[in-house]
């Protein structure tokens, strides 16, 4: 099994050892034929319908707007249905610096996203704090507060870089296991163990 993106040569992607390792692992352990095919179908669906949450704090957000505009047109990939409500979005692209005041808001937005959900850290500030690393109130990389799937460096990254990052996310999705991989029910139980007072309040 290999992970391919339509009309992109594999050589353009081979620098991503992480995904190659996942593929190897998947090939070694193997999957049930029926479940495996179903997984592939679902992953095809998810990876081709990544709806972003409109979330941008600074310059990268403007480049993201360029990404949606006519020249780069992310609609070609089906990414254009930007949802403003986190409940309906698939991934959060952190565009710009995250400061202390914003950090809890970002975490909350992430928690509000419905599974399966992904995070892309976009631009120097979101990757590491960027030029503001030494500041008294800047979070040095969103990976300190969120699990990040893909990093896109740049200040701000070019639209092409955005696409490259999104395609890396597509490749990553294509090797994930939906059956057995993401199990929301377990997480709910774990949540109730940690917050027994919420039992009965939500179902």
């Amino acid at each position, binding site marked *: 099994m290999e992970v391919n993106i*339509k*009309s992109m040569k594999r050589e353009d992607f081979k620098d991503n050892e992480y995904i190659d390792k996942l593929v190897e692992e998947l090939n070694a352990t193997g999957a049930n034929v029926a479940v495996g095919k179903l997984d592939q*179908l*679902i992953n*095809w*669906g*998810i990876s*081709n*319908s990544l709806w972003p949450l409109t979330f941008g704090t600074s310059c990268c957000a403007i480049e993201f707007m360029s990404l949606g505009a*006519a020249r780069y*047109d992310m*609609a*070609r*990939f*089906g990414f*254009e*249905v930007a*949802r*403003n*409500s986190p*409940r*309906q979005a*698939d991934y959060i692209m952190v565009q710009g610096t995250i400061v202390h005041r914003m950090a809890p808001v970002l975490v909350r937005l992430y928690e*509000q996203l*419905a*599974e*399966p959900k992904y995070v892309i850290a976009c631009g120097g500030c979101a990757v590491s704090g960027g030029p503001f690393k030494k500041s008294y109130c800047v979070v040095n990389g969103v990976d300190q507060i969120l699990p990040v799937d893909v990093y896109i460096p740049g200040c701000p990254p070019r639209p092409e870089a955005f696409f490259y990052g999104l395609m890396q996310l597509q490749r990553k999705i294509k090797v994930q296991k*939906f059956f057995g991989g993401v199990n*929301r029910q377990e997480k709910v139980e774990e949540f109730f163990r940690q917050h027994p007072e*919420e039992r009965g*309040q*939500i*179902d």
Partner: protein
Amino acid sequence: MFDFSIVTNWVNDLLMGFLPSWAAVLVECVIIGVCVLLAYTVLALFYILYERKLCAWFQCRLGPMRVGPWGLLQVFADMFKILIKELISLKGTDRFLFKLAPYIIITSSVVMLACLPWGNGLQIIDYNIGIFFILAVSSVGVLGILLAGWASNNKYTLIGAMRSGAQMISYEISLGLALISIVVFAGTMNITDLVAEQQSAWFLFRGHIPAIIAFLIYIVAATAETNRGPFDLPEAEHELVAGYHTEYSGIHFGFFYLAEYLNLFIVSGIASLMFLGGWMPFHVPGWDGFNEIMNYIPGPVWFLAKAFFISFVIIWFKWTFPRVRIDQMLAFEWKYLMPLSLLNLVLMAVCVALGWHF
């Protein structure tokens, strides 16, 4: 025109032949149900792609391209994704109503779709009050929106739902009056009869001025009824995040999404039935050869083509016009549109009474 009731009657007779009558009706119901739901899904998916491609072309873009040839599989990818998305339930909401709301909306639009005849005899029940029934069912949808807004326990959804309530109740009046003018003209509410009346020429041409006014009023009111731009205030993205369905995820949101697009088809379908002759082909009096050729195109194609054309116009509105404000929208309805449609109704009645029509 080819009468599809021959086919449906043949199926009925066939089933009656070897099944008791109750079982035959049951089997027919199941077949019809499957057909309607299938048509619903396919149409909704088609409409989503249709709008995305159209708006891309308006905006000098390409639109979905990479998933399947010309992006045709894009909507299927979206549907797979939406189906497996997590359904979030919230603390502090009215859980029963929260989950009920999307079903009310989807039910209302499925019932409306089921009432639309696609061709001669290609309908489920030929009501003698067909158009009245469709209007009545369409009002159920607003209940779902109000429930969704209220049960979400969120200020944005509540404002969105209240706007939606005010908007739909107001514009329903103009919508109804515009359709009543045509009913006055045709003298029937039975959809089959209404379309049959347009055998010689469409109502839009036969009723000349009052029919054209009614058509324009209907298009405006229908745009508002389906919550589409420039009247998309209930879900005004830039004000209310996502309006009444802000808190819905997964397939619950998918229901709202599908219903929105399907309602677009339904209002376009009604317009095509009432004004543009439904499944009747386009005829020009005197051009017999031309009319003959037009007759070869089957009825359902005519119906769908007209509906898609009107949808195109409504989509065009959405991507061109800015959004109106709630007070401007209500003022427009109550101060201009409704008096105009009342006057138009009177005009139509006068025309009919004096025989000033074709």
